[in-house]
């Protein structure tokens, strides 16, 4: 953690250089706020602004989605990319939303930030970059996808995590002490917290969640996978989703959104981080990835490269169909 200031300097100088030589129009990174434990997103257009970029445990916002605002641009944009951002970038490339040559990626291996979602993160080092600002040595091991499987966790740990995150988590503040030990947190911690419940309990769990939902669509707005030009929820004439606001309709929205990102989710957890009501909606998408892994028997991690095949966009003649 002592590395933060050293690394921050590297970010600043790299950003300055890119701005100075005109490689990029601006660099996306983080800036401090009035509160020590908060940062905000900064679009550094000048070298001076680049010196305001920060790098600390409170850089919780993921930056990838901001690229989408410039998807039609004819200039290049610089971005500080940790594991999650780099996977977002790959995802956007797979979905043909951005042009690789118009993004300059400053790879920033991440120690895990002060956010709940970071605790379950297995891919902290960037997977794509133009320039790696520092190497990933000395960080918690990354890329250990097999190790991430919950089967390797002690049963007691799963139970603890599950118990701690069940119903009471709804509406609770998301901020938790820095917890960089990924081995303590299952990759699918949110989903597993719900899976153990009975059908009725699950139903009321989600009822409680969606009763609180205000349909602000912040989850969609923040999601790097929600890259549609127009979202179905904004087009009520299409008939999929009306404007009515009820737990039932909110629920349809929640499940639909999960399904829309099902096989493309990069597990960044932004949806949950930005939820103003603090709803634990990450479980929905985690569940889908878990299901995909169960169906294929293989690890399914999105965003690892830009050429990958989507689960729902392909098939195997021998796919499971035990309920069909």
């Amino acid at each position, binding site marked *: 953690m002592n590395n933060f200031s050293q690394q921050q300097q590297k970010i600043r100088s790299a950003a300055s250089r890119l701005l100075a030589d005109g490689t990029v129009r601006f660099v996306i990174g983080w800036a401090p706020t009035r509160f020590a434990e908060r940062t905000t997103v900064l679009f550094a257009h000048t070298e001076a602004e680049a010196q305001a970029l920060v790098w600390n445990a409170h850089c919780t916002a993921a930056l990838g989605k901001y690229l989408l605002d410039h998807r039609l641009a004819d200039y290049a944009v610089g971005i500080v990319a940790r594991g999650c951002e780099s996977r977002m970038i790959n995802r956007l490339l797979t979905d043909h939303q951005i042009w690789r040559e118009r993004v300059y990626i400053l790879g920033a291996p991440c120690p895990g930030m002060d956010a709940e979602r970071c605790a379950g993160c297995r891919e902290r080092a960037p997977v794509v970059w133009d320039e790696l600002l520092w190497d990933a040595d000395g960080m918690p091991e990354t890329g250990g996808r097999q190790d991430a499987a919950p089967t390797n966790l002690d049963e007691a740990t799963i139970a603890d995590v599950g118990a701690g995150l069940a119903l009471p988590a709804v509406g609770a503040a998301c901020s938790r002490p820095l917890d960089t030990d990924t081995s303590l947190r299952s990759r699918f911690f949110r*989903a597993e917290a*719900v*899976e153990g419940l009975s*059908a*009725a*309990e*699950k*139903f*009321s*769990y*989600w009822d409680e969640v969606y009763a609180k939902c205000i349909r602000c669509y912040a989850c969609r707005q923040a999601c790097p996978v929600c890259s549609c030009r127009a979202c179905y929820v904004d087009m009520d004439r299409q008939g*999929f989703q009306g404007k009515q606001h*009820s*737990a*039932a*309709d909110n*629920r*349809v929205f929640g*499940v*639909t959104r*999960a*399904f829309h990102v*099902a*096989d493309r989710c990069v597990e960044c957890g932004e949806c949950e981080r930005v939820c103003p009501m603090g709803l634990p909606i990450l*479980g*929905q998408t985690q*569940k*889908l990835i*878990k*299901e*995909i892994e*169960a*169906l294929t028997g293989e690890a399914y991690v999105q965003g690892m490269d830009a050429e990958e095949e989507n*689960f*729902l966009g392909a*098939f*195997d*003649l021998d*796919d*499971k*169909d035990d*309920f*069909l």
Partner: protein
Amino acid sequence: MDVANRTNTAAGGEPKILAFCCNWCTYTGADLAGLNRMKYPANVRVVRVPCSGRVNPQFILRAFARGADGVVVCGCHPGDCHYATGNFFTRRRFMLMRGLLEFNGIDPRRFHARWISGSEAAKFRDFVSEVCAIVKGLGHE
């Protein structure tokens, strides 16, 4: 999806089951069941679609939200799809969807899928009867 507040228009609280049937296999199979005068419960309402691959999981969500007691999706057997590969995508979509519905507290016994060919009238009848029995057994939550 609002199971608690379901309004059922059927008299006597008979459950209604929505069935998506592909035009080339299952719809034909259902027609054949009629041609053979096979009897099955009247709770099922068939929506004809060109291919089971046309069935959007959001349709299923909508049906449950509106109060469906059960939803079924039927198509050609894998490899027999009139459009070559449509049902392979169906398979993946609904294997996922089932997990997600179950995760959301929807009883998976309310959602079924089955491969029924144009000649399998009896299978259609048996399947519909079976789903009706299951759904009736579940009652209204």
